[in-house]
């Protein structure tokens, strides 16, 4: 990992991190933020822990997990797929945006792909800040923006079939005249 580790105590070792971020290590992640797509269970507690530093007074986390029904139909499980390179790029953009908009310290944002069972975490976001207001606002902005702009798709499986979740159309730029 490329963590800054000055004056920090780790409750989990390098192995835990390796598994947490799997092959996504070293893809230009900054020292401060942790952005990843993973195929194994997300280590929620470790992520919440990793964003906090001495100067912070609050960490706000968002834990998105798999609901047992969709529009009144009992869900069996979900499958997530992503345009991985673009999804990581968009998640990094969101991290950059919340650093710009809110007085926060660090961000961890991890989305899981593949098959997820009821109750499992699909997305986890942790934002630390000196004061709670910025952490709340930034965390809310991050999950709302992720749901609108990050190219990840969810397929819902039921006892008698499967459907792609409706989703949202990301905003697109105004007409561009040429490829350049």
């Amino acid at each position, binding site marked *: 990992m490329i963590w800054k580790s000055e004056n920090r105590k780790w409750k989990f070792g390098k192995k835990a991190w390796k598994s947490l971020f799997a092959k996504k290590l070293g893809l230009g992640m900054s020292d401060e933020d942790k952005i990843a797509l993973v195929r194994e269970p997300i280590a929620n507690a470790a992520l919440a822990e990793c964003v906090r530093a001495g100067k912070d007074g609050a960490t706000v986390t968002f834990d998105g997990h798999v609901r047992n029904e969709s529009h009144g139909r009992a869900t069996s499980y979900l499958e997530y797929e992503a*345009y991985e390179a673009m999804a990581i790029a968009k998640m990094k953009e969101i991290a950059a945006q919340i650093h710009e908009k809110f007085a926060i310290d660090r961000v961890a944002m991890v989305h899981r792909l593949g098959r997820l069972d009821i109750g499992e975490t699909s997305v986890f976001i942790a934002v630390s800040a000196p004061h709670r207001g910025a952490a709340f606002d930034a965390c809310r902005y991050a999950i709302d923006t*992720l*749901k609108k702009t*990050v190219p990840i798709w969810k397929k819902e499986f039921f006892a008698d079939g499967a459907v792609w979740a*409706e989703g949202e159309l*990301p905003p697109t730029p105004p007409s561009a005249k040429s490829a350049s």
Partner: protein
Amino acid sequence: MVQTAANVRVKVLFFGRLRELIGIAEESGELPEGTTLAQVFERYAERFPKLGGFRGSMVVSRNQEFAAWETRVAAGDEIAFLPPVSGG
């Protein structure tokens, strides 16, 4: 707008329900230089008529950035057709 005869090689990706519908996740091909992303899609809609109905409920990206349909392709582009996103 002048359309040159030269062809450019591009990679085209499909995701989610679009990928499922046509059974293609990724393919490379040559297109006339100056082809717009809308025209790229039209070519696929001709090959896979079922795709045409999705034109109004999808977006397109070029080199991992959301792009306007009028954008023209260039050599080496990675183009992706993306249904409404539903992460989270």
